[in-house]
């Protein structure tokens, strides 16, 4: 079905170039002491004329303790032990082309009297002579430990990563004629720990592997180029239309939701009238006067949650016996929030589009609900904690069973090798999140805009039955 009565084509040409030089030195002493040094110079066409080049050095040292005779003598159970230290910087040029150049774009339709034209010119950028590489400096310390002939292995890493000159489309007041511009702003630090443990045991043809990993990352905004904070706003063409619903603030992690605290529903006209909240009506959303000045305004907005999980974990297990094997992967994320925009659009009692059945509990004088507005009263037009939900989940990510068919059976049907398998992805999710999938992200996957669910397709559940055949 083609609803458009006119279809126009358009064309666009962009070119980006990258030029890199790389030097590396490896040095190994008796196989026990390892040193690596790298220096690279990267040039990208995307940056301003005088900022196209940047140099990124890095160095790493490692000490294979398990090759030291004294350690073997002292602790014979250790089959492998390696200590690692590294420091280095890398660059990012992940922005669209031409962002340092002012631009007039041609192609806006306009009309002069009865004649339509399609080549109106509009301003889309001004020059940014300071646009340059985003640089990340990372320090990492790690241990690789193997015990009992590597039947038990442990890998642990700690890192501290600071990114400066972040490339970001910074919002500017509309009164300047633009909405945002791509620039380098501030510094963000990420610190984290990663721990992985794997075990392997085999006896009489039965091999069992069990493993687990856990990681945690803490981000913190260190500097925003002099600003204390900035806000993001939902896309103009789709929900959420809420203004300033994400806050990036010095001293805070990335991914903070920003809005009003929801205190349920106004139960009387008197309560609504006394609230100091513009548009307050009985049966409508009640917002909290966070700063206690007896009126509800933007100063009552506060941080409502964070999209970055505080803990990520995974568990793996596999059993192999003879020609059969079974493997299971469970993973999860704990302690983070999701904004359920989908629900926000479907909880207006009496609305003319599809609504959730929860609206049937709408507020009336005889049904003084504190969770659902009254008939024809839509939710407050802005982000409130009403839509912020716990996203923590545990998911059975993968289960695979496979069987290698014996050659003699395969030979009967003319194949040399035959493997049959049954595999399921994303089979079960345990979560208190009320919509389909707490892992979706409607506003892109940047650290700033994770955690928005606006009727996205959830992750799919897949069951695969397969055969792999070799002739």
């Amino acid at each position, binding site marked *: 079905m083609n609803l458009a009565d006119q279809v126009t084509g358009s064309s666009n040409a962009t070119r980006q170039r990258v030029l890199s*030089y*790389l030097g590396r030195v490896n040095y190994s002493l008796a196989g026990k002491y390892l040193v690596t040094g790298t220096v690279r110079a990267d040039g990208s066409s995307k940056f301003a004329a005088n900022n196209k080049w940047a140099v990124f050095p890095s160095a790493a040292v490692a000490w294979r303790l398990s090759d030291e005779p004294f350690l073997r003598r002292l602790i014979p159970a250790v089959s492998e032990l390696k200590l690692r230290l590294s420091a280095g910087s890398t660059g990012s040029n992940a922005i669209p082309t031409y962002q340092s150049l002012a631009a007039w774009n041609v192609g806006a339709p*306009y009309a002069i009297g009865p004649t*339509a034209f*399609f080549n*109106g*010119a509009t301003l889309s950028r001004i020059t940014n002579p300071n646009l340059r590489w985003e640089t990340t400096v990372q320090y990492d310390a790690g241990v690789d430990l193997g015990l009992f002939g590597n039947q038990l292995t442990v890998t642990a890493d700690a890192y501290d990563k600071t990114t400066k000159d972040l490339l970001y489309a910074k919002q500017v007041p509309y009164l*300047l004629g633009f909405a945002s511009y791509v620039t380098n702003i501030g510094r963000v630090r990420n610190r984290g720990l990663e721990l992985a443990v794997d075990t392997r045991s085999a006896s009489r043809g039965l091999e069992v592997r069990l493993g687990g990993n856990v990681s945690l990352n803490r981000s913190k905004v260190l500097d925003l180029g002099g600003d204390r904070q900035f806000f993001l706003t939902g896309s103009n063409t789709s929900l959420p239309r809420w203004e300033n619903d994400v806050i990036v603030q010095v001293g805070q992690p990335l991914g903070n939701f920003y809005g009003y605290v929801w205190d349920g529903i106004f139960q009387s006209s008197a309560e609504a009238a006394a609230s100091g909240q513009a*548009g307050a009506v009985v049966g409508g959303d009640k917002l909290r006067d966070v700063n206690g000045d007896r009126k509800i305004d933007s100063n009552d907005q506060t941080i409502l949650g964070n999209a970055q999980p505080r803990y990520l974990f995974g568990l793996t297990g596999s059993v192999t016996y003879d020609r059969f094997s079974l493997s299971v992967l469970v993973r999860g994320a704990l302690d983070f929030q999701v904004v359920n925009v989908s629900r926000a659009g479907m909880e207006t009692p009496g609305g003319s589009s599809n609504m959730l059945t929860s609206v049937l509990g709408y507020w009336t004088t005889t049904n003084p609900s504190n969770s659902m507005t009254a008939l024809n009263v839509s939710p407050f037009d802005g982000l409130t904690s009403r839509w912020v939900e716990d996203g923590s989940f545990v998911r059975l990510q993968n289960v695979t069973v496979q069987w290698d068919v014996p050659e003699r059976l395969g030979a009967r049907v003319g194949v040399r090798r035959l493997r049959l398998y049954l595999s399921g992805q994303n089979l079960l999710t345990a979560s208190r999140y009320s919509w389909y999938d707490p892992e979706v992200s409607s506003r892109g996957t940047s650290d700033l805009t994770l955690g928005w669910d606006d009727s996205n397709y959830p992750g799919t559940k897949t069951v695969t039955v397969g055969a792999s055949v070799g002739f």
Partner: protein
Amino acid sequence: MILRTLSLAVIALTLGGCRGWLVEEPQSFFTPDDFPTTEADLKIALGGIDDWYTGGQSQAYFHRGWPMITEVPSDQTVAQSASDSRYAQDSYTLNASNEWLWRVWRQIYGAINQANVLIARIPQMDQVSQSVRDRYLGAVKFHRAFNHFNAVRVWGSVPLMMRPTAEFATATQITRAPTAEIYDSIARDLADAATLLPLRWPDSSTPDDGRPTRGAATAMLADVYLNMSGAIVQQNHWAEAAAAAKAVIDSKAYTLVPNFADLWLIKNKNGPEHIYSIQFGGLKRNLFTSQSRPSGIGVESGINYWYSTPDFMATFSDSDARKKTTFLTQVTVGTTTYRYDTLPGFFGDKRPRFPKPMPYYGKFYDANGSIANNNGRTDLNWPIYRYADVLLMFAEAENEANGPTPDAYGAINQVRARAKLAPLAGLSQDQFRDSVHRERSWELAFESKRLFDLKRWGSFYAVLSQDPVAKIGLQPFMVFLPIPQREIDLDPGLGQNTGW
């Protein structure tokens, strides 16, 4: 170490040779170094300003935002819904985050910045003849004035932007200018534009083809002087307002369309009465028609966002030839006739919340079947100035400056004659004033004039506090809408309007 030193040396040697490799040479856009350069460039740069009014910028302001913040909150229009951002405008329960505020604000200042870029550029375009440069300079000054005028009438004191944005780092410390200073600047821009612009463009067959003209700039100047003489600015420019309106009349470029109903047909747009209209057509069909049309009337259905009121309709005399055109009370589509007052479910509105049936806008309703084929849009233009408005502006200003002179009667009676109403005679200055006010409300209904008229007449609160929807949240300070919250958050020096 030696290796490392070597590679650094190699890098250093090569960098110099490769500078050109990383230079960006745009293929798909122009830069201010090379654009605009020719007359053809100027044409598309001027056309691009319209993008803020009608085009790709989301919900451009003459599709939706402008009637949303100037017509819906007036006493002549009511939003259909009782719960959304339109209702918030209608009932004065909006807050500073209301989406229609920042949409219109953004589009106004986007257009102003593009005008400023061109105002700075055009005088240096030595490849283009002086007469062409004059025309385009006049046109972009008109656009800068038009948008400041819209902003100052909606918000009062706003930033006065007279230079193109050159950098962002310090530009977020812009503050608002006093209202009187903004009006002075608008008047200067329009006086310049009126001098620089022709009565019609050389390649145009009508005075109004959507490009600014001397008539458009002069008509707007009359309007600006009326506003400066009103309750908000409280200066006395009545004589200048009358002179500007008279200059438009004396240009003899415009006449009233004899039959009021013909004025509103799509086939008659840019006719002899139109002085300046926002152009819709081609790929840019308007949404505003659809928003004031009932749904549920077959192929002529719109999206039923707002309608007028029976109380306003009752102020029209039955002999007023404008009444039937202004209000939509009955529609025949094929063999079915729908009426606005047939219960249950008045046409369009299946869940009426008002005791009396509500008439829809008739002015923008041209039942020619085209709306169904065009995704709910039509090619009708949005009228900014037409000759009847200029006659009434003249009558009002002349009466204030010199009393009800024969010229003042002549102007208002032309408009009344077209409406088949008896001529006025023998009125006191006060009676004449009341008559002009009433005449404007009838003649210019739904054309985003009413709310600004009430403000400058000083009757904003008195009239709207009698409006059953507006009075829900109305307070006297709401004569100015709140500055969009996003702007204050990004530029705290702006501050909020009193009361919000």
